[in-house]
């Protein structure tokens, strides 16, 4: 009898087929359409559309602001998750559910509210603007709303890992004479690192794609506070579909490259831990 090559898990063909079909329908086909539309341009037109001084300033701002916001979210999100897991206090349930609110709120609302708060006559702006802190119509404003929309990601990826973390290992570390900082750095942080990186990547990707809130708080000044998606809208207004999608393709490629990089980092950090 011929030996049959049996896989441990049955149904590979079916589940793989389903995965590819599903991904194609939702992600690959729209992205391919994007590439196809952009390829209707000649190489010269393409370059002229995506690589102007103004477009470069916009890419830098889009990715820069998303990066800064994701770093802030990694630190603040970790803190939030820590407080939610390790301490018991009244109203904890409510605080916990507040974390997800940025996902549900239309982001345009967030942009409008943030800018109204931070303008010269706003609740916060009346104290901050005299100090020279421009929270509305500035790069700071963009980072602020991106921190808002990215908030849930780090908290929700780190939280379950923290819950599983056994306090005994921290106690052991303390009993071996480690300071609190040493315990945090050598015991807690390595365990959390992969989740932290995942949360960071999600928050970062969310920030790159954000449009609704940013247009209301950035002021959209070319070279200063103009994000790349605004350029796409501007080209669409001229009925220049090809140029608009070309800019989208550049954003896609940069995002994809960065996500691969972050993925590598995550894997490296996992190996490092073991």
């Amino acid at each position, binding site marked *: 009898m011929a030996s049959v090559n049996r896989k441990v898990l049955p149904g590979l063909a079916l589940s793989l087929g389903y995965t590819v079909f599903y991904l194609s329908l939702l992600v690959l086909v729209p992205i391919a359409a994007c590439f196809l539309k952009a390829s209707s341009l000649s190489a010269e037109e393409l370059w002229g*559309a995506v690589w102007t*001084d*103004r477009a470069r300033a916009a890419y830098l701002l889009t990715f820069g602001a998303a990066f800064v916001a994701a770093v802030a979210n990694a630190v603040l999100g970790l803190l939030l998750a820590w407080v939610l897991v390790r301490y018991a206090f009244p109203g904890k349930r409510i605080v916990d559910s507040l974390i997800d609110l940025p996902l549900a709120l239309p982001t345009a609302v967030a942009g409008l509210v943030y800018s109204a708060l931070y303008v010269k006559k706003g609740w916060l702006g009346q104290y901050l603007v005299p100090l020279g802190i421009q929270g*509305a119509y500035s790069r700071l404003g963009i980072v602020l709303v991106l921190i808002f929309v990215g908030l849930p990601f780090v908290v929700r990826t780190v939280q379950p890992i923290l819950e599983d973390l056994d306090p005994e290992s921290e106690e052991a570390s303390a009993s071996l004479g480690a300071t609190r900082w040493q315990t945090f750095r050598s015991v807690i942080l390595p365990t959390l690192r992969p989740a932290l990186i995942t949360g960071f990547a999600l928050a970062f990707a969310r920030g790159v794609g954000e449009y609704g809130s940013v*247009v209301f708080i950035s002021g959209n*000044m070319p*070279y200063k506070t103009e994000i790349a998606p605004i350029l796409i*809208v501007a080209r669409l207004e001229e009925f*220049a579909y090809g140029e608009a999608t070309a800019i989208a393709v550049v954003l896609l490629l940069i995002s994809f490259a960065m996500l691969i990089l972050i993925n590598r980092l995550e894997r490296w950090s996992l190996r490092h831990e073991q």
Partner: protein
Amino acid sequence: MTRLVSKLAVALALAASSAAAADVTLLNVSYDPTRELWRDINDHFIPQYKKTKGDNLAIKQSHGGSSTQARAVIDGLDADVVTLASVIDTDAIAQKGLITGDWVKRLPNSSLPYYSTIVFVVRKGNPKGIRDWPDLVKPGVEIVTPNPKTSGNGYLSFFAAWGSVITRGGSKKDAVAYVTKLYGQVPVLDSGARGATTTFVQKEIGDVHLAWENEAHLEVREAKGDLDLVYPPVSIRAEPHVALVDANVDRKKTRAAAEAYLKYLYTDEAQEIIAKHFYRPINDAVLKKNAATFPAGIKLFSVKEIAADFAAAHKELIGTGGVFDTIYKPKR
């Protein structure tokens, strides 16, 4: 048996008569601030159409940014009529073959049942003394206007500012210098007209808001004394054309109703409604009757006085690499 037959006949006759009074649904695809105007016009036109033609008409409205709406129609939104803010948008639909022939000439007054312009809204009592375009670039004056790249209000404001120099004998160089200075004093470029209104009214940013005339009237009325309307001596004549979308009305068999709808806009009744919503009627008698709303002092110039046509003006001033792009280029 005969009774049954006669009953059937009656039922059939009833069905036939109700089929004679057809149900027709029209879709009017328009731009953002016209929501109330079209609702009012539809409420008057529908009963009138029922009386004359006997058909039950329903008119749906769709509103959004003008060129976004044009793209939606190009991509298959079933518009019977389009009533968009600028001729570029209607032409874009025509270029795809959905509107045929020389559409501008098909209706009276070059398919323009009304027109509008860009005016100034200032703070109560006009503390910065803003009366005319040159006043905008005085030191310390902040101007609120939406992004010309993404908003019809935005590029019409730009055309108006540009034309205020050109139509009064200035050179192109003067005009470039003027708009460069002007946009240097614009603190925020909102993406659309309503965003700019929020910035000016709610967030109290800026000294003057360059707004659509109809929006300016509403803005001042709602501010209850906190804002004033200022008519500059000159401004742009904004021309929102109306057009039948041939491909759609032929497929949906709604041409007759759609044509009647557009023709209705030129009646005295419709012109009055248009004036009531602060759009300028083309009927001179109606315009004069509403002189309190539309002061005669303002001289409106056509886009043809600043360029060959609308598309050329947009390309030269707003399009990629145009004048607007050079304004923000950092000096090296």
